[in-house]
């Protein structure tokens, strides 16, 4: 799939490259949505983030010079757009489609706790714990020094724990 993406991105500089880009980027909707969902905690916000990321990538596609970096480039855009999304204050319980009451309560509490974290904290938790990226990859995606990833991740975990106890 990565080679197919590379071939497609070679046509980005053509005038009809936009259409080819739109067609191919649809192949990345799945993982892009899941990444945004882990950062925002909310399907609706993740959907909006994915749409914004796709539009932003479409507009700035000509700035991409290295076809081999297209996936990492789009991933950064998705993360940025997900961080810009503010999770909604209310949760549609019916949309969660969870029958187990305990699991439902946990899910609601997770979403509420995530919504109270800073965007950078939500992002680093999702990238480290949800996507299992290395510290070097996280530093590249977030644009932060690699030496600070461990401390920022620990701070995010502590913030989550503290806010979780407040929600109980």
């Amino acid at each position, binding site marked *: 799939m990565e080679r197919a993406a590379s071939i497609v991105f070679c046509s980005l500089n053509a005038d009809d490259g936009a259409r080819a880009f739109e067609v191919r980027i649809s192949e990345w909707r799945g993982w892009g949505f899941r990444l945004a969902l882990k950062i925002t905690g909310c*399907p609706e916000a993740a959907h909006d983030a*994915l*749409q914004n990321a796709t539009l932003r990538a479409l507009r700035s596609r000509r700035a991409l010079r290295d076809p081999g970096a297209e996936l990492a480039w789009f991933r950064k855009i998705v993360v940025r757009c997900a961080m810009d999304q503010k999770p909604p204050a209310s949760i549609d319980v019916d949309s969660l489609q969870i029958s187990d009451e305990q699991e439902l309560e946990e899910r609601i509490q997770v979403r509420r706790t995530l919504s109270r974290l800073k965007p950078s904290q939500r992002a680093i938790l999702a990238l480290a714990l949800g996507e299992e990226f290395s510290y070097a990859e996280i530093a590249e995606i977030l644009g932060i020094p690699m030496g600070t990833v461990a401390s920022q991740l620990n701070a995010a975990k502590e913030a989550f724990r503290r806010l979780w106890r407040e929600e109980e």
Partner: protein
Amino acid sequence: MSDPIEKLQNFYESCNGAEPPMTATLAPRAGNVAFWRFASLLGPAAGGFAVAALAISLAAGYVHTGDSFGSRQILERQMLQSGMALDSVQFEPAAYQKRTELPNWRA
């Protein structure tokens, strides 16, 4: 007591099976972008002319908005012509929603 981070990791695992809604395509948004690009080509002058023309039409009574405000104006005009006191009649917007002709107040 279990670590809340475990709950968070359970949530992340549940996300791995999630799929975006079928409406999550670029087409509608691209359509919106294309629309506004087209509209921007018209320029502010054309839009301003259209707004001015609409405002003039509304003021002259040539355009019936169909809402209670436009209907009230027509009703009051009729009442004044017939010599009726404006506060003697209860205005019912529904009665004027189905009007198809403007009154000939120029007569």
